[in-house]
């Protein structure tokens, strides 16, 4: 029994990291119809900035903040670079792929090829007695941060003016333009904020997923599958997709580790067959 509860909690805490990771990706897909391949690189940047700063004696909370700012800055640079490519998918893909290479190589130069062991704050070391079982505090912290971020994004989307504009653009970019929403500004803000959140996912989630050369593409795959399963442009979809992928991945790793990545294919196959638009989204044009 304990085992199963622990497994479930593992799945959920992993799912929350996935949610932080994919929230930005799903929003850029929804608003810009853009597949940003550097999204996994933002995770890498977030994790490495945290690692390097903490190693040089910076307070961890400050390092987290710096990681978010650094990735948001990366996001801004990528957004500016993307401007001349217009809406050409091939060119967008090439560009973000190129930036992915550049960031990966720069990270290799600066941090090196060894896996970085990410720090945890002292008060989150050890376990917490949940009655039925003792469970690592840090994972519970991840669940809290994930849910908190989900709450914040929901509030933003449904309770603020900018959030309503965002939903309007996701639903119908043309109409949104018609009622005077400037989609470029909105897309820029979404892109930068989404990058920052992905950076946070690296800073916090690197403890679980690791931070090493190649993690960028690996987490990109997770984020893609989450968005495919959840449906593009939807925070709720990203949350649902993250939990589903968290569960499938955790359970597969527990019982058939070699098939962990392959199980993603099964989930994709199922969702694309049964519900091509994803759990909560609408079909991407």
């Amino acid at each position, binding site marked *: 029994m304990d085992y199963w509860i622990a497994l479930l909690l593992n799945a959920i805490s992993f799912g929350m990291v996935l949610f932080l990771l994919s929230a930005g990706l799903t929003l850029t897909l929804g608003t810009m119809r853009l597949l940003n391949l550097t999204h996994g690189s933002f995770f890498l940047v977030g994790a490495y900035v945290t690692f390097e700063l903490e190693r040089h004696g910076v307070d961890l909370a400050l390092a987290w903040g710096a990681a978010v700012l650094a990735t948001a800055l990366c996001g801004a640079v990528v957004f500016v670079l993307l401007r001349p490519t217009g809406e050409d998918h091939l060119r967008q*893909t090439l560009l973000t792929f190129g930036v*992915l*290479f550049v960031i990966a190589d720069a990270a290799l130069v600066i941090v090196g090829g060894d896996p970085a062991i990410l720090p945890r704050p002292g008060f989150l070391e050890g376990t917490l007695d949940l009655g039925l079982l003792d469970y690592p505090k840090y994972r519970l912290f991840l669940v809290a941060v994930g849910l908190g971020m989900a709450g914040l994004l929901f509030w933003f989307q449904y309770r603020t003016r900018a959030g309503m504009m965002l939903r309007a653009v996701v639903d119908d970019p043309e109409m949104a333009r018609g009622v005077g929403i400037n989609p470029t500004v909105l897309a820029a803000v979404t892109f930068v904020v989404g990058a920052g959140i992905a950076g946070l996912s690296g800073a916090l989630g690197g403890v679980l997923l690791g931070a090493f050369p190649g993690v960028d*593409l690996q987490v990109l795959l997770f984020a*893609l599958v989450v968005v495919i399963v959840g449906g*593009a442009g939807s925070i709720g979809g990203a949350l649902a997709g993250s939990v589903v992928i968290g569960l499938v991945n955790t359970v597969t790793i527990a019982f058939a580790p*070699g098939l962990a*990545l392959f199980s993603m294919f099964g989930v994709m196959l199922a969702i694309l067959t049964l519900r091509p638009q994803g759990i909560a989204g609408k079909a991407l044009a």
Partner: protein
Amino acid sequence: MSNSVSSTLVSLRLRGAKLVAPVLGFGALAMIPYALTLNEIHLLSAMLIFGIFAMSLNLLVGFGGMASLGHALFFGAGAYAVGLLSFHRDSGFALSLLVGLAAAALLALVVGFLVRRARGTAYLMITLAASQVFWGLATQWKAVTNGDDGLFGISSPSILGWDFGSTVTYYYVVLVVVAGVFVLLTAISRSPFGYVLRGVRDNEQRMRAVGVDVDRIRHLALVISAVIASLGGVLYAYQERYVGPDVLAATTSGDGLLAVALGGGAVAGPLVGGLVVGLLEDVVGSYTDRYLMILGILFVLVAIFLPRGLAGLAQSLGDTVRPRRRAAEQAIEQRVEPAQAEVTETEGAHHG
């Protein structure tokens, strides 16, 4: 009457001009080994194999408008078919080739089903995710794939007792296959299917309205493209005598897209793009560790500054450098046009 003769002459001249470049190109490729070292010939084979991959991808991207980030899956299917059959069974070339092509066709049928409703970004996402999953399988299912170490023990390729594994012989085998793929894809590009595929790229609604089963056209394009890519993969495995997960990686797909975008154009462009990217991989990699950085910057530069690839660049350069020749060509076209106009007027008179 004279009109149709002159337009036939013009089209023959144009067709003749179009043949010159490929014939010269392949002729040069056939002669060049005499001037190269064995290492250089080996590199040229690798570049040509990457050219096959780029040409196959362009059928999907350029003709079909389906930008895929998962084409490495099919290249890898061919390569892994050879690797696995050699590693576990010690099978020969012919069987490995057949299994490789069949595996790619089968995978393309499944992936094609996944992307049947996906367009644009969704197509990129699903193809990338699908190929990454198989990359994961190659790295993680160590009992079968030998993980990151990859598969060794691929013996020299031979058919009916003819061993063609020596560097020079293999180069010519690769060259013949490249020429074959080039001719095949050129034929497809001129065929009804090739045009219908471009029609689907430009306007699906219209193609449906004239009775085309768009989903199946797209699916067939994916299968053809996958089978050609896997042919490249099979050749790759026998060239390197080794297969590792890198052939399935997203970077391979990305390099393919770079080659397609760099080349531009119909069939020759992606081949040239593939040769250039294949050369860069080797040259840059041997001079610096910062290969990834340089390639990344190249991706960015091509995306921003070469929207129509080298073919587009050559065309616009040609237009500025040779305005006189361009004018001459227009004059030929115009000589045909007035005659056509007369025909229209008489037709119009009938109706009026």
